[in-house]
Each structure stands twice: as C-alpha cells, then as structure tokens.
C-alpha cells in the first residue's frame, strides 16, 4: 500500500472537516470503549492475564528462531508448506506463484492486515487474478476502492447511506429501485453476493492471529464466519502471517485469546476461533488439499534487540486506537498507511521508514491511555518518544518543533516539574477560555485551532478530568 503518512498534518485537517467521518467517530467511540470496559470488569483476573500475555510474548520473541523452526517442522508434518519471505516482494511473488500454478481465476480473502501491508489485491489484479474480500467491511471498501481506516472495524468510517449507495452502484443485476429498509437488508444482500464468490473461488487467503509452534497451527478469529468459508471451500488455503504471530503452545494461545476479544470488541470470545493445521486428511469430506503459510519478516526481525522490540508483542486488538484522543478526532486514514493509531505511530516508521512516517509519533497527546488498555502492556508512549528523539537527532524536525521538543523533553523527564507545568498550564487555559468553554486560538498552535476549537481544561489536568469522566461513564453503563 502506498503511504500518505508524510502528509499526516494535511490528512488530519481534512479528516477534522469531514462531516461523515466525524459522525462515524462520534458513533463508534462509546461503542468500543464501553464494551471493553464492561468485559474487563466482568473478569477479575484480567490484569494478571495481561501480565502473563506480556511474558508469553517476551519469552517467544527471545527464542523466536527456535519456535519458528519447530512450528515450520510441524506445518510440514501436516502436509503444509512454509514460504519464508524476508521482504514484501518475496511474499507477493510467493502468493502469485501459488495462484498461477493452480490456475486460479478468483481468490476469496478473509481480513488480513498483512495483505494490506503487502498490497496483495493490487498485485493479483495486475496479473489477471480477481481477489474478492469477504469480510463485510473489507468488501465494501473493495467496492469503493478505499483502504481500511481501523484494524478490526475497517469500514467504521462509513455511514448507512454510503453502504446503500455503493451496493446500488456495484450490484447492477438487482432491481435499481429496491429498498433497504433496515441494516439487515444490506447484510442479506452482501451474504447472497458473497456466497456465490465463496463457491467459485480457486484459492482462499486468510491472515492469522496466532501461529502455534507445538502443533504447527494457524489461528483466525472472526465473528462473521467469512474466514472459515474462505479457508474451507477452495482447494487451496494460503495463510499470510508475520513472524511475531508465534506462540509456543495451545495453552499460551488460550491466554492470548482470553485477552484478544475482550480488548478488541468487548466480547468474552469471538464467534469463530479456528485452528488450522495442514491439509485435508484421508476420509475428510471437506477442507483444502493444499495449505501454505507465507511467513513474512519485512523489517520485523530488525526490531529485535532494539528499543522497539516490545512492539512485536502486539496482537492487533485495536484497543489503543479505540482509546486514543488523536485517533478519536482524525480517524484512521489520516495516518496514511496500513496501521493507524498509537500502534501504527510506532510500527509504521519501522516498516516504511522514519523519513516517510516521521510525523506519526508526534500524533500523540502522551496521555498514556493506549498503554493502559494494551492487553500485552506495550509502552506505546515511550516508544513514540524514542522515535521523536531519533527524528530529532536526525534533524528532520523543523526548527521551532525542535526547540519546543527539547524544552518539553527537559520538563517531561522531571515528573514533578511536568505535573506542576501541566497544572499551571491547565489553570491558565481554563481562565482564558472560561467564557465559552472553548478556545479558538491557542498560542503556538494555530494549525490545530484553525480546524477546531481547543476545549479548555476547566481548571483540571487531563489525567484528573479523564479519571472523573471515566467514573461517570461507568456509573451510566
């Protein structure tokens, strides 16, 4: 996928002015945050499970070569093939090679962020193979030729009108004057359209939430069942997985699964959690005859042994973006590449380069909310600071930012001073904006306040106010 990350600032301006997007953001935020909070509250062991999840991932990363080799051996024992792909080019070539060898015309696809990272759809299309996204959100994005704006709710930015309009435009074989009375009618139409695609596909491509060394399995987690149809009906199943998806055993995977759905959608468990291990066995009446895993590195191994190693624990739950005040205002597209929000701000520069994505680590208020909800306790704000420091050292930052950042760094490294400074700042701002509760201008931040008013802090720091708002919300839920 081509990146527009260097234009983060302009992207963000556009996003703030986008009425449809702002409507979607307002609708979505309470949904995700409220449900996660409820699910976590219902499981008293959650905090301890997070610590265990962090430790499992750390153990796996420290021994990643061993576990990858063990896993690959078990995949092969079950009749599968592992394609070790160091780069995105290698991975695209491997996928295309399999599709061409089996003479594939259409390929169905489950949701996969790695697929977005690799630009698989474009690559297949260029070679005359038709990819069909089957996750409902991905399907409409494919019709509209838009990238996802969220890693688990890829089309959250669309409103009902957008769905109806796209379906009318794409499904021209259906009566043009049909009425979509409810959301259910949209779903029913998509289900019927995609059923035919599932049955016709020659190859099914899915992602993987986890790889399990002990059994040589790949795991997908969905609510729709599209991933399962994608990997069950065609003759060939291709899994796209990056090296950090590894966990050692089923018990380790189970701990991660107790964290994943709760952090992502606030469900206790997703509807379908499916473990795939190799090819159709003798006597089986269904399932693929070929099972391939495209094992992708693409810059991840280079994060080991650096201050960004912890990022490889990420299980792509999206909790950090669902709770991020910046994401909550600009949405996902503004980040300009596959991975948005706090996890994207850390990951994108490592994958496509700091010169491309140097703006992203600045897209943070350093409120710390992302780290506090991350199921594997990734210190996201600290890593964003590392990027800022690196960028600073490389002198990529404009002069004014550099001075302010140095000052901010001086204060931030001294917690007492930082708290004092923010308290004074909050008090001053509260006073300035007292009359209407909003500041339309703020010294040194013209770019920010031109697009929106800065809400005044009403005499409290962010932390204090956030804590009291959260208490209020829980009371209402």
């Amino acid at each position: 996928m081509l990146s527009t990350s260097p234009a983060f600032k302009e992207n963000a301006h556009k996003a703030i002015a986008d009425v449809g997007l702002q409507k979607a953001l307002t609708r979505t935020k309470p949904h995700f945050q409220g449900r996660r909070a409820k699910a976590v509250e219902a499981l008293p062991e959650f905090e301890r499970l997070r610590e265990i999840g962090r430790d499992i991932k750390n153990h796996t990363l420290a021994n990643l070569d061993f576990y990858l080799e063990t896993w690959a051996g078990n995949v092969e024992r079950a009749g599968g093939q592992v394609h070790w792909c160091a780069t995105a080019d290698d991975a695209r070539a491997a996928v295309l090679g399999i599709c061409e060898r089996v003479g594939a015309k259409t390929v169905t696809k489950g949701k996969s962020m790695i697929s977005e990272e690799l630009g698989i759809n474009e690559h297949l299309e260029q070679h005359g193979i038709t990819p069909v996204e089957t996750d409902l959100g991905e399907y409409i994005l494919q019709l509209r030729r838009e990238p996802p704006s969220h890693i688990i709710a890829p089309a959250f930015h669309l409103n009902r009108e957008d769905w109806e309009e796209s379906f009318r435009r794409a499904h021209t074989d259906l009566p043009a004057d049909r009425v979509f009375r409810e959301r259910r009618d949209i779903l029913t139409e998509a289900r019927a359209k995609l059923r035919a695609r599932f049955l016709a596909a020659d190859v099914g491509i899915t992602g993987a939430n986890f790889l399990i060394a002990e059994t040589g399995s790949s795991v997908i987690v969905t609510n729709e069942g599209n991933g399962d149809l994608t990997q069950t009906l065609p003759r060939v199943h291709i899994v796209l997985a990056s090296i950090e998806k590894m966990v050692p055993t089923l018990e380790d995977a189970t701990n991660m699964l107790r964290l994943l759905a709760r952090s992502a959608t606030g469900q206790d468990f997703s509807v379908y959690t499916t473990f795939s291990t190799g090819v159709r066995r003798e006597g089986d009446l269904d399932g693929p005859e070929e099972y391939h895993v495209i094992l992708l590195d693409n810059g991840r191994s280079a994060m080991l042994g650096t201050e960004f190693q912890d990022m490889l624990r990420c299980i792509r739950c999206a909790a950090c973006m669902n709770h991020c005040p910046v994401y909550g205002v600009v949405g996902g597209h503004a980040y300009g590449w596959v991975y948005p929000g706090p996890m994207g701000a850390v990951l994108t520069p490592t994958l496509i380069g700091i010169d491309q994505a140097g703006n992203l680590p600045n897209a943070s208020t350093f409120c710390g909310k992302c780290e506090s909800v991350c199921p594997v306790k990734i210190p996201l704000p600290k890593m964003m600071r590392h990027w800022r420091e690196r960028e600073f050292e490389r002198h990529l930052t404009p002069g004014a930012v550099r001075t302010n950042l140095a000052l901010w760094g001086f204060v931030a490294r001294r917690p007492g001073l930082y708290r004092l400074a923010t308290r004074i700042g909050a008090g001053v701002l509260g006073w300035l904006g007292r009359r209407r509760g909003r500041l339309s201008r703020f010294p040194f931040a013209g770019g920010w306040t031109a697009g929106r008013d800065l809400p005044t802090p009403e005499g409290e720091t962010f932390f204090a106010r956030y804590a009291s708002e959260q208490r209020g919300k829980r009371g209402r839920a």
Partner: protein
Amino acid sequence: MSAEASPPGRPPGRVAILGAIRRHLRRGALPEDQAAMLRARLAAHPRHLIPARSRLSRAGQVALFIANVEKEFGSVARLADARAVPGAIADYLAQQNLPSEIVMAPHPELREIPWAERPLLKLRAGRAEASDLVSLQQGFAAIAETGTLMLPAAPERPTTVNLLADTALVLLRASRIVGAYEEAWDLLRAERRDPLTGGFMPRNVMLVTGPSRSADIEQTLELGAHGPRRLHILLLDDDEAARATPESVPK
C-alpha cells in the same frame, strides 16, 4: 519440502530470516541445553492462570454454559436422552417456520438416533452444501467459561456442517461440558490421534460461540453474516451430577 523464496544473489528466505533474528538477538543458534529446556516446555505445555468463573459443580458448569450460550444469542434445549432428539428438532423447526430437511454430519452418535419415529424429518448424512438450510453437527466438547462449542474436523464431523446452513443444530452431551478451554484441549490431546501427523491436532478445530454476526454496518450488531443466523444446541442430560440444582451462576 519447504519452499524457499530466494531471488538470485540473496540467501534463501529461511536462512535470511533466522539469521536476521539471531543477529539482532546478538547470539547464534540456541545452545543444546537451552533448546532442550524449550522442548521440555512444549512437551509439558504448562497451563497459565485459569479464571475462577468456571470453577463450579458439574451442575453449575452446565448452567454457566447455557447462560453464556444464551447471552451470545444461541439457544439450548435440555433433553433426557437421545430418544427425545427427533421430537425436539421437529418442534424447533416448526416453531421457527423452517423446512424439515436437514444435512447431518455422518457421526455414529447422530446415526444412532431413532429418526424413524419422526418420518417427516428428511435427513441426509454428509458434508453441507450452500443450498442446505438446516444442519446437525455432533459436539465434541463444550466450554462453560464462555458458552463455546469445540468442533474438531474429522470424516464424521465435516467443517462445512458448522458453516453453510442458515440454522445450525448441535447435539451435545452434558458430560462433555468442561469449565475452561484448557480442559477441552486435554480431551482432544487424550482422545484423538491424527492419521497424518501422529499427533492429536486435526486439520481444523473450530471454537464456536453463538451464531455468526457482523457489526460492520454502523457498529450495529446483526446476526447471520456469512455463517448460521441461528445456533440451537440439543443438550443430552447424560451426566447424573449435572442434574443437581446448580449454585447461582454469575451472569
């Protein structure tokens, strides 16, 4: 057997990736004693913390399972024994206004049900096709913790039966309901041998919690996305202890 993506002039992918990992971890391949420790961990596959919520009496676990299935929009009918199954299915289908044609997994437990007592039910044993409206699967085990069915693929338990019909019926014995996922994995480890690998893991294991759904349209939940819209579990009370009065179940 392993396919290597190796453009000319660069080491094969496997060597490149493993080499890069070791270089960045600042070590070579693991020394034998450390590798042996990791192999021992894999062999022992230690359990981690298991949430206390499923630590209940047998009756409590069954009640928790049912409560969780219903919370996730599934339904459960408790039946005294297999003889009650045909009638329960006929009633359910009539209630939901559904046709009485069913594709059934070719599992011995399902074949042994006295179907002849309900001649109006039309059964076909085999894998499911896209045109099937109602399916009947055999449940290998179930997990009370979240109301989850464990459905491992086998010749007698095809995966398509879990997925293609609009209404999915599953026959489950109460004695096969366990508290936590870990206990269900142990059943699989103990009872299943894979013909291809000699291990226990079948080609596919589905953990199913409620009927298929999507919230992609305006974050509003709709049931029946690509998989079944209804999930109805026929629960056979074959477990004496599970018939006692359960302690109160946390919702």
